[in-house]
């Protein structure tokens, strides 16, 4: 028998798990798979539908119209100098990206148990690919927003982009991290307890209303009971929505402490999600 030291082994499969056990080298080795998954998602999403990617446009537009009718016309929410429709469209565009990342990644384990049960690859590739392919939808919706931004400028509204626009990529990353992190936590827990997938759809809908999507933070401070106002204020998603509208529409306020707070929370949730996901991926196939 050849005498081999432990460190000569390429890897070890064992029952013991470390708390933090990421193999970034391996994820890097599977980067081609990541891109192929992204490509698959994009190519196949609207196959055999008549309107195809037009669905990307219809959904945010109609939601914005409804929001404008209910919250601004009926509910008298003030959006300052910004037209309410554009205000809502900005919020919905950002919110949709976060929501899609969360919803789509939250079913990673249950939806892919067929593949996961047969072959090994770093499981985290799948939620990562979902987050990336959702960027396409986000990009298209952003184009509509830009279209309406130009339209409103032409018909006489005074609109301007804030210098914070350089933070745009950072905001996208924060949303992705938050959606991905929460999605990974949910996907791990739903392998055993399916109740959570029912809860999630419901919870995400409610979450939107405490994340300052259809109203500005200033209105929340003025009209909500103080406890609720605080809750909304410390919700990292509120800060993302406010920051997003601040840089695109120059409305609301920006506070760098709040920005760092949001960044920190998102990173924390992402890392937490990654840890839980990593622990689950090893044996979920037995409980799913």
């Amino acid at each position, binding site marked *: 028998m*050849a005498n081999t030291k432990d460190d000569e082994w390429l890897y070890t499969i064992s029952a013991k798990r470390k708390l933090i056990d990421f193999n970034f080298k391996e994820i890097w080795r599977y980067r081609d798979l990541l891109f192929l*998954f992204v490509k698959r998602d994009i190519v196949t999403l609207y196959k055999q539908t008549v309107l195809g990617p037009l669905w990307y446009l219809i959904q945010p537009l109609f939601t914005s119209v409804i929001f404008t009718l209910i919250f601004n016309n009926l509910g008298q929410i003030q959006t300052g100098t910004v037209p309410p429709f554009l205000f809502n469209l900005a919020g919905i565009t950002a919110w949709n990206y976060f929501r899609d990342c969360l919803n789509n990644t939250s079913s990673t384990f249950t939806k892919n148990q067929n593949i996961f049960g047969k072959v090994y690859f770093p499981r985290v590739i799948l939620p990562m690919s979902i987050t990336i392919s959702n960027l396409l939808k986000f990009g298209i919706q952003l184009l509509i927003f830009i279209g309406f931004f130009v339209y409103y400028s032409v018909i006489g509204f005074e609109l301007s982009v804030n210098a914070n626009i350089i933070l745009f990529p950072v905001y996208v990353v924060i949303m992705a991290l938050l959606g991905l992190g929460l999605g990974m936590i949910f996907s791990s827990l739903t392998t055993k307890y399916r109740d959570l997938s029912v809860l999630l759809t419901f919870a995400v809908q409610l979450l939107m209303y405490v994340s300052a999507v259809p109203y500005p933070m200033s209105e929340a401070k003025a009209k909500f009971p103080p406890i609720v106002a605080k809750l909304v204020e410390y919700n990292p998603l509120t800060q993302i929505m406010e920051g997003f509208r601040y840089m695109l529409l120059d409305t609301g306020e920006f506070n760098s402490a709040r920005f760092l707070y949001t960044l920190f929370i998102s990173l924390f949730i992402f890392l937490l999600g990654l840890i839980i996901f990593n622990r689950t991926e090893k044996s979920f196939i037995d409980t799913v």
Partner: protein
Amino acid sequence: MSEVILKVEHISKQYRLGLVGTGTLSHDLKRWFYSIQGKDDPFLKIGDTNDRSKAAESDYVWAIKDISFEVKRGEVLGIIGKNGAGKSTLLKILSRVTSPTTGQIKTKGRIASLLEVGTGFHPELTGKENIYLNGAILGMTKAEIKAKEQEIIEFSGCQRYIDTPVKRYSSGMRVRLAFAVAAFLEPDILVVDEVLAVGDSEFQKKAIGKMQDISKGEGRTVLFVSHNMAAVISLCTRAIVINNGEIIADMSANEAVELYLQTTSNTESEIIEKRKDRINNGNFIFTDLNILNTQRQKVSALLAGDSYFFQVFFKSKFELRNVKIRLQFLDSNGQMRFLCNNHFSNTEIFNLPQNAHGYIVCEIPKFPLPKGFYSIKLTCFSDNGLEDEIERALDFDVEGGDFYKSGKEQISKEGVLVNYKFKFDF
């Protein structure tokens, strides 16, 4: 060559029986409570061995228990065992689909598995797109796949449909394409589970040929799980036999196959003498039936083309004249494939004295049935007419085998294999 590339140390895997649901949360909480106290998992101490036919005594079962073995570089290791013996669980752990409950596996090479071909095919994507996706799932990089794309397409034989979505493929074409992708994988250790049982005969030949190339020509380390004993013997250098989750043998492929065929006995069958489901005149009675191999060992799974003895035990009270004993070999549809009768060869008819008991042996030098599940129907006639008849006196498996000594598994499962010769005249 003699370097150990894979080392499996005391691997066990425990599964919970029944539904995952009720009680899961309470067990989880108990586990968690023990773990914060620094104690071992309380549920690891219990659990039955993995014997499907016995009723469970606890909620937990050990699918595999304390398995250890080593594989050297370039070795082709066969893993054989009955259905549910734990082979697939072992492969799942090896290919990291699930983690072991205890123990560890150390490897010096990358392990890739062909657990089931076609995993991750997306029906809306074209054949070519799926080659890339499937290859990447199995661990290839885009560049590697690109370099082999033409070979893969050629091997699959699906050139014409390569730009058509896979959902329009026939199931056979899907399997061909999937196997083609997998066959061009180049991992250090390849895990193969029963992929040879797919496709038409032409493709099977191609697949077995490719397997032989991989294991012999390219010197790859292969773990090969199969019920196809002929393939195990021809491909593997060594084999382990797993029974009820434990390794019962680790030896050369030939010996292991022989041992396996002996151990897969039909423990469930009743003693023939005690059976009531028979036509009997109260005089002559069949008491037992054994199948023996050339070493006179009892077997219950046969290889086509090998030599076997069918030993029929009987008892009779009165004197009988012109006893004729008939063994009918029936397939799983109840169709008779062939029969043996001492009446056909006149010299073997015999007379029995009073209170006789003994046996008659029927030798079949080249057992002629292809792979499948069969039973034997026993009948005895004398001058008094029908003495005893019993359906399904014994069930047995034929596990493939190489009747024509050609190195090929017989594809057809119909009919009977006979010896023949072709002559050519041009």
